[in-house]
């Protein structure tokens, strides 16, 4: 392994946050193409399945992380569960913040149709979302954090699929419309006295 690759490996080991290629170039006093070559070398050394560690591109930088092969043993060693899964309410709130940021809580509530108070508080506590200024009415706006990108294995928000991908298909829309109309007719029918 080249000396530069070795140095970069050490930097990634020490740094608490993902390190960008620019920061690596600055710290090692090297050109960015040299850094790119060293990173390619590290990518080969950390090829999937080769080591207990992997090289991840997350939150706009590069980071070392464990391979899931070690999950059970690390849980036993550190006696610490990994990030608990999201509740449906938290996941919905997070999805709305991720796609519409910056977004206010009343807006989240409007889209979900149910309040988002405790879900957004939990997400903020876990460091997935943070304040991003205020709306013109003074309501706190939320955005996602770098920790969100890191824990979700995303390099940037661009890594999220387009929201249009989740649009119901025309068939599903037609089906939904049918069901809605039928329900409406039924209600209307129930309400009118037997003529």
């Amino acid at each position, binding site marked *: 392994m080249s000396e530069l690759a070795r140095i970069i490996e050490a930097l990634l*080991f*020490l740094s*608490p946050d993902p390190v960008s290629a620019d920061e690596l170039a600055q710290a090692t006093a090297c050109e960015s193409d040299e850094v790119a070559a060293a990173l390619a070398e590290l990518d080969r050394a950390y090829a999937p399945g080769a080591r207990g560690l*992997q090289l*991840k591109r997350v939150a706009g930088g590069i*980071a*070392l*992380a*464990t*391979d*899931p*092969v*070690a*999950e059970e043993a*690390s849980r036993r060693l550190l006696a610490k569960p*990994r*990030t608990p*899964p*999201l509740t*449906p309410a938290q*996941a*919905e709130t*997070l*999805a*709305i913040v*991720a*796609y519409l940021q910056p977004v*206010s*809580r*009343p807006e989240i*509530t409007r*889209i*979900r*149709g149910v*309040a*988002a*108070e405790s879900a957004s508080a939990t997400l903020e506590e876990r460091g997935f979302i943070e304040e991003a200024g205020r*709306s013109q*009415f*003074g*309501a*706190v706006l939320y955005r996602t954090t770098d920790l969100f990108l*890191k*824990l*979700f*294995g*995303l390099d940037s928000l661009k890594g*999220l*699929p387009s*929201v249009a991908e*989740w*649009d*119901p298909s025309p068939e599903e*829309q037609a089906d*939904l*419309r049918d069901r*809605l*109309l039928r329900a*409406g007719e039924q209600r*209307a029918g129930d309400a009118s006295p037997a003529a």
Partner: protein
Amino acid sequence: MTVASLELDLEVFSGPFDLLLTLVLREEIDLLEVQLAEIVIAYLDHLEARGELDLDVATEFLVLIAALLELKSRLMLPREDDELADFEPGEAAEELLARMLEAQRYRRAAEHLAARLAGEEGVRYRRAPLPPSLRSTNLAEAGAVYSPRRLGAALGSLLRVPAQLRVGHLSDPRVTTAERLAHLRRLLLRGATTFDEAVRGADRVTVAVTLFALLELYKQGEATWIQAEPFGDIAISPASRPAAVL
């Protein structure tokens, strides 16, 4: 004590009533998340602790809580009174459909995110303190990265008093219980009357305050009242006892 300073300890809010009101108006607290019943209970607890009823405060409280209730019910049924009338049933369904589709879009995005997080399970990052040699920051090497103007601007934005909120629609009871008491007493001097008579042409706030004045008259033993059927008119007659001295 005024209603404004009534201390509340709700699930989503803890502090004085007027602060809650402001936060709701500024959309910093979602009214849908506020259990109005909790506020009423807090007020009843307060009354019980005091052991007496301050009529003016009670009136103010009723007006405020009624306004909040109305606001909340409008939020819960957003298009009921104003727009639904103009809505063809088909349009209403389209509107509802659009909302459902939007909600569904983000529910699926949520599933995607949850799956993504689950997929990253087992990927752990290191959290360890830096080696001692790297831990101390060399002050001499620290340069100016931030502009002090940023701090001045941040503080300046806090100093600015936000524009006055329009709360006229919430309450401005220009009518007082004392006025309505006098009004009722005048009517009763001429003999029996009815509630409809007493509030003819009055706005809703006045109607509410008049009802309160009527309660007070009843409590003082100055009047009795009978409502023959639900929603029927209320007949009011002077009590047999002579009226209390004003």
